[in-house]
């Protein structure tokens, strides 16, 4: 199973589309934005180079967790690869657990690279403890998005899963204020954004870099979404792999 996870990760890293959208894109976007706004600070006194770092890392993590789960999973289900695995001694729970682990591992490159770009190009410096907390929180916080990706992949065909995952990803990125501050969305949309896991996910990171601890509301909302979407994913996964 470990080898299976390793192989899964390897194959995603060989996928050019994945590398571009998920790893290169957030880094580029960060560098462009940070070079324009990076020397300003927000009302709380935090430099935009840091705020943007969190937003772009969050976007990269969101994109990675959805792209590495929904489409490959839908494709494998449809193409017969899943059946090939189902007739080996590998238990069926191990398949989805491996997908989950792989998606989590693949989030790390975008988190680390955006942070690295921030340190090297913008001279961002945080204490070691803050870095550790930030990466850990941003890493585990992607669980709802991985679950959403697996749920999409369990329900839709490969052709439909691609746009569905993209739309969900963009909607979550915009609503979560990952691309521009949520205030520009207007009142109605801001209210909607307040319910999304991505908004609270980004806030987890922002709270840490601003020096105040995690807001329990953010933790609960992200965890709640993780539980809800995780439950949905498991249910849909079982339905998708049921032996009639």
């Amino acid at each position, binding site marked *: 199973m470990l080898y299976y996870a390793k192989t899964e990760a*390897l*194959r995603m890293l060989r996928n050019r589309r994945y590398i571009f959208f998920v790893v290169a894109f957030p880094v580029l976007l960060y560098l462009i934005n940070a070079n324009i706004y990076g020397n300003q600070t927000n009302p709380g006194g935090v430099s935009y180079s840091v705020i943007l770092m969190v937003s772009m890392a969050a976007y990269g993590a969101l994109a990675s967790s959805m792209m590495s789960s929904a489409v490959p999973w839908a494709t*494998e289900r449809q193409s*017969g*690869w899943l059946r*090939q*695995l189902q*007739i*080996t*001694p590998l238990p069926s729970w191990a398949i989805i657990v491996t997908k989950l682990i792989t998606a989590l591992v693949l989030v790390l490159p975008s988190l680390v690279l955006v942070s690295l770009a921030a340190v090297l190009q913008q001279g961002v410096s945080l204490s070691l403890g803050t870095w550790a907390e930030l990466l850990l929180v941003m890493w585990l916080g992607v669980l709802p998005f991985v679950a959403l990706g697996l749920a999409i992949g369990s329900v839709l065909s490969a052709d439909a899963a691609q746009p569905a995952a993209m739309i969900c990803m963009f909607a979550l990125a915009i609503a979560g204020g990952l691309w521009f501050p949520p205030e520009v969305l207007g009142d109605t949309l801001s209210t909607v954004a307040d319910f999304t896991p991505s908004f609270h996910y980004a806030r987890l990171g922002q709270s840490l870099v601003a020096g105040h601890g995690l807001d329990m509301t953010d933790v609960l909302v992200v965890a709640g979404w993780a539980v809800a979407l995780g439950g949905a994913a498991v249910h849909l996964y079982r339905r998708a792999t049921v032996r009639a």
Partner: protein
Amino acid sequence: MNAIVFDHVSKHYGDVLAVDDLSLAIEPGNTVALLGPNGAGKSTSINLLLGLLKPTAGTVTVHGRSPDTAVKAGEMGAMLQNGALIPELSVRELVDLVRRLYPRPLGLDEILKLADLTELAGRRANKLSGGQSQRVRFALAIAGAPRILLLDEPTAAMDVESRLRFWAGMHDYAAGGRTVLFATHYLEEADEHSDRVVVIAKGRLAADGTAAEIKAGAGGHTVSFALGDQPVAGLDRLPGVTAVEVDAGTAVLHTTDTDATLAGLFRGTTLDVRDLKLSGADLEAAFLALTRES
């Protein structure tokens, strides 16, 4: 103990009856062809054996256990129809991935050799031709050294060369006392590559035996001669004859035993037999006769 047992198995898909009261036992070490036209229930039977489908009625057992248990124990390997590969992985990586999921797999080099993939080992799956992909799927099926190997129309998309090599690999694999069941609608494949042929049509067992027995049993031999205006009566009572056709003065006797029929024809009748023709065992004729009846 039998390797594979179907005990009064039926499988419905809604109103469609894909497998209809099928009973069948296969001994370990046999290579059996599951022969039937498209839609006869071949794939359904294979999926039932793998536990990918559950029978509506009856039971399927593999080495006396349920298919799920056998799959978990790594006893089954299969080449299914439309099985895709992961495009970003090389042949070697794919084979290694699957073999590591089994408790007692074959060695990587041995698998690649049996499937004739040694030269293609480093190639990515999305750069393979149709026939090459099929060979990779064969490699995946045998990777775990399963005691039972199921092949669902394994030579589809293969050219002649690939086919020859594929069957050679299959025979090498089966030679280790393993049980092989392959589904095909190619008669010559069933004839050449199996110890036993099971013919199914419309989900039912139509015939079961060696290729030679099936040809004989279905009256695959014919004896024909110019009858002219001599009487037809009595020809159908000759030894071995299963059917008589007369067309434009030519009598065609379908028989299960050409020798007995000829002896009866010359010794037991006073007919003037001219233009005698014998046509031999033809599995295609047998197959058509069998699948038409049912």
